[in-house]
């Protein structure tokens, strides 16, 4: 606050004000202000409805009174004398003539009124339960959430009470209602006592108001007095501080700065808040003049109520119709709420300086860590560099150049605090006077650290730090290898650039956010920054078996990769005679290891796309390196032995690719420099070589046309046969389908296979130089089916997973006969894009095309919201130093992150295993060449070495099977040690050729080492690598794993294709998949689209038993097992006679007879009593109608006759159907049942079902029946299943964290606003998520206090977050200072 200028109060001595340094916000507490409090903080009473007087001065006591701050730039504040820019404003106050409800609290007021007596203002509970509840409520151990639950249970009793007598004063309370249109509360005393009174009153003639007594309006004044009267204990009981504050008696007029006037063309336009306040003042003034009883007064009071409500929330409807403003004004709630509101737009994210944005374009000559910044941009963006001995000359030159010439500077900040703009002042003089310690805002220069970002920023790799390279022209450029993490392409994308302004920020960006340190995604440890597109194509062509280069060509290409500046050892050519020729593969060996001093030994084997795994040699082994297509890539000590390199080796999304191996074995520098070299090599090589696509690439050969027609005709024939069978009724039904469905699915399947078949034919006939073929083979772009669509056949078009629907009567288009099922009539496109589509084909194609467009449009919104919710729910979770995962309150979510405390980003093996033993074994054998005294270890020796190594790291004998999850003192998980042991034992068996023929024994013993076996040194190296590398992969404390987990689950959601359904084991039984399913799981939805119970059978090898169990589960109606249900009229009575068909029942092995049917009918809710149903014999029953009156009997009988067949006599009612699933992988075949619908408990209880292993995919049901741990397991399982069926792998640790967060409170909490609210978060965080104002009103009501700990809270308050680098604080121990003793006091020693 600005100190009052000296003309206010003068002191004889300057007052001492202690300088405590910058203050930190420790917490924030919410409350409501009382009438007097508002009066106190107000500087002025506002009562005048005018803004300015005739002299354009603010009216004193008006809404723009200068005591509340300066109204415009020419004025100053009358309270603190600050100028327009300095004064932060002061409140005014506006007392209301009559109190009104605060619209935000209206529902709370109603709730409280329901609980208290409207006469004596005490709680309606009787004394005993009141005391009991109060005790519970005052328990200091309860947190806000538990209190709310308690409160809800108390309030529930009075929610819809009609009439209740107060236990203290005996007053009869009616129900309290809230009239939304008039913003009033009605006390409805419509009960017997009152009715009696009224009837008495009606006799009195002169009684005026007729309806007054039954429903009385509780006006704010009355409520206010009731609330004032409320007992303190009752307030505590209802978890509220001062209920009378919920009613507004005095408005705090906000300072002018938060409702600034906008001056346009000399006319001052007032803010909406000011306008609304003006109306309130007007109505208030009218109200003050009226007398209490007049109807005008009541009308004005309602008017005031309405205006005050709109002042807070302009969405409030009501009031007089004629007075609606044309344009809705913004109230306070509108300012706060929503995406554009204060919380999400101004507090959680703020506008930043030192940023830039333009179009991006590629530049393979840049390093992957660099970004090219246009000079134009570099002249605007600056970095404040402190002048030192080392840079003073550079900065002097910058200053002389000024802000417009490139290596220049914009601003000089002297150490004293003064600053000069270098555009205006004399630059030369300032440059000469430059001193150490000054700060110069210089232009961006090469090597500066910048943050680079592309929206949507779905994961942390969407914002990485690069080194700046200042370049001419106007685009931001970077290496194409970095496209993947940003998900950028160059079709006009724009990206953002931020320049960190302090050394600390730079360091942090450099260490945490550089491209080099983010090569891997923490989603699953796969490499993300990797070669793409052209790089793959050229690598593929270079490493082709028949590319040879002579000396000059080879040397030229060698010089490409390092700008001709690198030292390169020219290898011996692969072919020495008749001419020296180097092969393309040798180029790759140079790329990895240019000269002998580079100590990089890459060892890896990869199967490329073109690898032919089916071809076997005479011992039925795979051909591996000898593959005819040359598809087996083998690097041995950085030499490319075999294989044509493509996407699997170089591309992203692979854990055993070249760059992954480099990254793991030789750290990120090696991988990055290799990528740089490859980028340069490929770009330049392909620039010379040329790679293009033309019309001849998509022209089919004659043989292809021929074979395509053959394939398609064959497929058509198959379909025709299906249709024929269908019409004859001979079609063999698929499990759980009717005839039409079977036909449809078999035709659809046949036609879908047709395209794949044509694609195969197509790929075979293309020339090897065909560009699309090359691109598809190396994986840079396109798939066989894409090529097939261009060259041969476009294939079946599907809409919503089916063939084209009937848009016309019984047909898809009028070009076809009715009920046509032929391929062409249902959207099979026989033509290729080259040959051109016919009119109908084109139409079908557009249908499928539109579906794709609509799907992506819808999906982006869905996944975006899902990511946001996940993020808000998980943002606070991070790893502590004891490996626990806790939220901000400190409550533990996981005891050990992911059960083993490993970093998902570092996982090398499949399925989140830390290491890939096979690869490391190969590597250690290759880098440790067998030397002269090469001795193979016997298996006992191997075990001994293993034990030695393990005991070295403190794992001597603790490797029993029952070892606990984590060996805390050494930090190796038992799982890891066990897998290592079993791997070593499996792979070092040397007894293959133990005892040879005695004659050859000597020869053999020489030869065996070359084939297999492991020497001591090799084994030691292998074990050392495994053990030491495992330790590196432990996750670091402070890692924001919550946020990382949210990213890892949210980001793949955006990539999910439109495959939203999938067969669950059998055709016809679909499960929801894709984004909708993920959202279902995450929401913890109580109703899911496709609940499926997987019932495991006790005898799973017998189809007949399985069918019997299926019959027991599936619901059987009476109609299905009854021979007849008929109405029998006799002369004396009329009844329904049911006779059961025992043959059907026995065939289905159902345990039904007349007695069970009787029970079923009784339970079915037909309102029949036991005496109405007579069991005649085992298979006959008689049902008598309930005799009410003779006239109704006929209707009753008919009604019963219609309803009885629907009675479920056997099976689980909630089950839709059950389908038998046959598992053919194992011999003999096994069977289990897939049950559609809910009712897990019932299914588990059915005879023949193994209840221990039966599970559902319905999470809430799992929780209710099997408990919270089962629900957690179910969440993990279901998310993994969904992700897997979309071909996405996510580390299970992320999913575990999500599942733990959802279940940690003992019930499944969805990631919705209701769930997150129950996770115990601060009000600020909740308010920044959704329905901001509700949480703010609630916080104010309960008088909540938030410590500012959470991530959102800290961001809102501008504090550093306590996660990651912000987790630690430095504390300094200071010696207690000795206070100097002054002179002895004159009067001492009393």
């Amino acid at each position, binding site marked *: 606050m600005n100190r009052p200028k000296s003309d206010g109060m003068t002191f004889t001595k300057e007052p001492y004000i202690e300088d405590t340094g910058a203050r930190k916000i420790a917490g924030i507490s919410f409350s409501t202000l009382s009438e007097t409090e508002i009066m106190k903080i107000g500087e002025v009473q506002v009562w005048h409805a005018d803004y300015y007087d005739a002299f354009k001065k603010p009216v004193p006591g008006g809404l723009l009174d200068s005591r509340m701050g300066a109204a415009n730039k020419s004025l100053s504040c009358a309270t603190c004398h600050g100028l327009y820019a300095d004064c932060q404003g002061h409140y005014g106050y506006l007392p209301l003539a009559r109190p009104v409800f605060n619209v935000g609290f209206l529902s709370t007021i109603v709730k409280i009124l329901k609980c208290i007596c409207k006469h004596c203002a005490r709680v309606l509970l009787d004394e005993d339960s009141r005391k009991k509840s109060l005790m519970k409520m005052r328990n200091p151990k309860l947190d806000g959430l538990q209190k709310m639950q308690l409160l809800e249970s108390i309030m529930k009793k009075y929610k819809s009470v009609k009439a209740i007598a107060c236990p203290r004063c005996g007053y009869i309370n009616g129900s309290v209602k809230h009239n939304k249109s008039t913003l009033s509360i009605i006390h409805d005393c419509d009960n017997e006592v009152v009715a009696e009174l009224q009837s008495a009153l009606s006799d009195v003639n002169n009684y005026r108001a007729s309806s007054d007594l039954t429903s009385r309006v509780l006006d704010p004044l009355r409520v206010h007095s009731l609330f004032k009267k409320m007992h303190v204990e009752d307030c505590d009981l209802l978890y509220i501080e001062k209920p009378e504050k919920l009613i507004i008696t005095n408005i705090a007029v906000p300072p002018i700065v938060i409702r600034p006037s906008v001056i346009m063309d000399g006319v001052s336009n007032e803010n909406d808040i000011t306008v609304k306040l003006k109306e309130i003042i007007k109505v208030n003034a009218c109200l003050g003049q009226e007398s209490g009883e007049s109807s005008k007064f009541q009308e004005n009071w309602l008017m005031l109520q309405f205006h005050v409500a709109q002042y807070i929330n302009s969405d409030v409807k009501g009031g007089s119709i004629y007075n609606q403003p044309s344009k809705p004004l913004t109230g306070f709630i509108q300012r706060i709420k929503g995406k554009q509101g204060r919380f999400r737009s101004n507090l959680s994210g703020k506008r930043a300086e030192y940023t830039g944005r333009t179009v991006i374009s590629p530049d393979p000559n840049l390093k992957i860590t660099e970004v090219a910044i246009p000079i134009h941009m570099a002249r605007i963006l600056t970095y404040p560099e402190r002048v030192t001995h080392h840079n003073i000359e550079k900065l002097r030159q910058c200053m002389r150049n000024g802000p417009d010439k490139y290596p220049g500077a914009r601003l000089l900040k002297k150490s004293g605090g003064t600053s000069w703009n270098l555009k205006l002042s004399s630059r030369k003089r300032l440059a000469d006077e430059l001193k150490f310690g000054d700060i110069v805002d210089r232009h961006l220069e090469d090597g500066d650290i910048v943050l680079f970002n592309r929206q949507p920023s779905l994961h942390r790799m969407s914002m990485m730090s690069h080194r700046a390279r200042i370049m001419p022209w106007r685009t931001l450029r970077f290496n194409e290898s970095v496209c993947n993490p940003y998900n950028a392409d160059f079709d006009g994308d724009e990206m953002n650039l931020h320049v960190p302004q302090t050394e600390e920020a730079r360091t942090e960006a450099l260490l945490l956010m550089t491209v080099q340190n983010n090569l891997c995604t923490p989603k699953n440890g796969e490499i993300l920054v990797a070669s793409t597109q052209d790089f793959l194509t050229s690598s593929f062509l270079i490493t082709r078996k028949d590319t040879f280069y002579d000396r000059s060509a080879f040397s030229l290409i060698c010089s490409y990769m390092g700008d001709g500046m690198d030292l390169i050892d020219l290898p011996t050519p692969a072919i020495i005679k008749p001419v020296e020729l180097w092969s393309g593969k040798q180029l790759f060996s140079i790329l990895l290891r240019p000269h002998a001093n580079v100590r990089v030994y890459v060892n890896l084997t990869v199967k490329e796309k073109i690898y032919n795994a089916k071809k076997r040699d005479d011992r039925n082994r795979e051909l591996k390196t000898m593959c005819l297509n040359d598809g087996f890539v083998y690097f041995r000590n950085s030499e490319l032995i*075999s294989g044509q390199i493509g996407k699997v080796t170089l591309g992203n999304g692979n854990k055993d690719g070249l760059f992954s191996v480099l990254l793991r074995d030789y750290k990120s520098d090696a991988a990055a420099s290799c990528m740089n070299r490859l980028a340069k090599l490929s770009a330049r090589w392909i620039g010379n070589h040329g790679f293009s696509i033309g019309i001849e690439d998509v022209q089919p050969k004659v043989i292809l046309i021929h074979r395509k027609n053959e394939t398609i005709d064959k497929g058509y024939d198959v379909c025709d046969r299906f249709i024929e069978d269908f019409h004859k009724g001979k079609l063999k039904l698929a499990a759980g389908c009717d005839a039409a469905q079977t036909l449809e699915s078999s035709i659809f399947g046949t036609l879908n296979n047709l395209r794949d078949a044509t694609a195969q034919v197509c790929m075979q006939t293309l020339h090897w130089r065909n560009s699309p073929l090359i691109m598809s083979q190396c994986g840079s772009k396109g798939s066989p089916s894409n090529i097939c669509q261009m060259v041969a056949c476009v294939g079946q078009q599907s809409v919503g997973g089916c063939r084209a629907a009937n848009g016309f009567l019984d047909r898809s288009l009028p070009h076809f006969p009715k009920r046509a099922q032929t391929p062409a009539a249902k959207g099979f496109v026989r033509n290729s894009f080259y040959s051109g589509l016919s009119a109908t084909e084109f139409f079908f194609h557009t249908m499928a095309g539109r579906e794709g467009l609509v799907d992506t449009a819808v999906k982006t919104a869905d996944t975006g919201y899902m990511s946001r919710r996940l993020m808000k729910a998980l943002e606070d979770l991070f790893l502590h130093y004891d490996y626990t995962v806790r939220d901000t309150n400190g409550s533990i979510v996981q005891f050990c992150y992911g059960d083993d405390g490993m970093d998902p980003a570092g996982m090398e093996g499949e399925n989140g295993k830390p290491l890939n033993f096979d690869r490391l074994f190969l590597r250690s054998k290759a880098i440790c060449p067998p030397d002269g005294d090469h001795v193979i270890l016997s298996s006992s020796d191997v075990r001994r070495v293993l034990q030695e190594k393990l005991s070295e790291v403190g794992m001597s004998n603790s490797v029993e099977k029952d070892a606990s999850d984590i060996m805390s003192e050494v930090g190796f998980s038992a799982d890891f040690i066990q897998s290592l042991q079993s791997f070593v034992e499996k792979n070092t068996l040397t007894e293959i050729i133990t005892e040879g023929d005695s004659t050859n024994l000597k020869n053999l013993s020489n030869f065996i080492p070359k084939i297999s076996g492991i020497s001591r040194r090799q084994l030691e190296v292998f074990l050392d690598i495994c053990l030491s590398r495992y330790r590196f992969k432990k996750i670091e404390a402070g890692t924001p794993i919550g946020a990382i987990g949210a990213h890892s689950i949210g980001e793949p959601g955006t990539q999910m294709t439109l495959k939203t359904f999938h067969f669950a084991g059998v055709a016809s039984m679909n499960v929801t998949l894709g984004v909708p399913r993920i959202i279902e799981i995450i929401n913890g939805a109580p109703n899911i689209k496709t609940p499926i119970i997987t019932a495991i059978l006790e005898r799973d090898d017998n189809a007949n038993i399985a069918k019997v169990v299926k019959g027991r589960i599936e619901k059987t109606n009476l109609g299905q097992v009854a021979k007849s249900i008929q109405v029998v009229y006799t002369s004396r009575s009329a009844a329904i006679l049911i006779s059961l068909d025992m043959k059907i029942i026995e065939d289905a092995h159902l345990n039904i007879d007349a007695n069970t049917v009787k029970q079923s009918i009784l339970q079915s809710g037909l309102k029949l009593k036991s005496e109405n149903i007579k069991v005649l014999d085992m298979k006959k029953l008689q049902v008598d109608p309930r005799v009410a009156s003779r006239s109704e009997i006929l209707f009753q009988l008919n009604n019963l006759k219609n309803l009885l067949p629907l009675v479920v006599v056997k099976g689980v009612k909630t089950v839709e159907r059950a389908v038998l699933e046959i598992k053919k992988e194992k011999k003999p075949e096994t069977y289990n049942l897939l049950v559609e619908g809910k009712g897990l408990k019932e299914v588990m209880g059915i005879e023949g079902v193994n209840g221990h292993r039966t599970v559902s995919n319905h999470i809430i049901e799992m929780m209710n029946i099997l408990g919270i741990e089962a629900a957690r397991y179910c969440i993990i399982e279901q998310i993994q299943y969904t992700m897997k069926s979309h071909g996405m792998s996510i580390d299970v640790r992320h999913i575990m964290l999500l599942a733990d967060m959802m279940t940690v409170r003992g019930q499944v909490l969805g990631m919705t606003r209701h769930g997150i609210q129950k996770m115990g978060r601060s009000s600020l965080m909740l308010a920044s998520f959704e329905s901001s104002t509700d949480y703010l009103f609630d916080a104010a009501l309960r008088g909540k206090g938030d410590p500012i700990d959470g991530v959102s809270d800290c961001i809102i308050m501008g504090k550093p977050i306590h996660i990651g680098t912000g987790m630690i604080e430095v504390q300094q121990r200071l010696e207690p200072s000795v206070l100097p003793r002054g002179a002895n006091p004159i009067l001492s020693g009393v």
Partner: protein
Amino acid sequence: MVESLFEDIFRVEKLNPDDKKLFEKVNRIEARSERFDMFMHLDINSELYPLKEGQKFFLKVVSTLNPDGTPDTGYYNPGNRQSLADTFEYVMYGKLYRVTESTGREKAELLISFGGLLMMMKGDHSHFNKFELDQRLYLLIRKV
């Protein structure tokens, strides 16, 4: 005199195992030796050195080209010095990357890569005693 690691006369039995020419300039030949009954797959640059079915050639594997048998330095510095290659028509340089057992007892396979041109030789392991894993080798061929 340089010690040859292996030498024999082979007869080309077949070109390209699947009768499909997959690569324009490279043929994979199947050959069988006369003396040791060795079986061999070998990738050969067909543009430079075309071999036809039924042709016979003499094959020799050495670890150095120096006629006096001094070991190879590992660096390539060609000159007009005398070399073993002078008497051969086709010479390749590569690395032995895998030794493995094969069908039948006492049979073994050698796998050598000449800068991506592969060679697989299968036969009695007693003939392979002089080979070492990761050895640099020269392959010398002349027609007979």
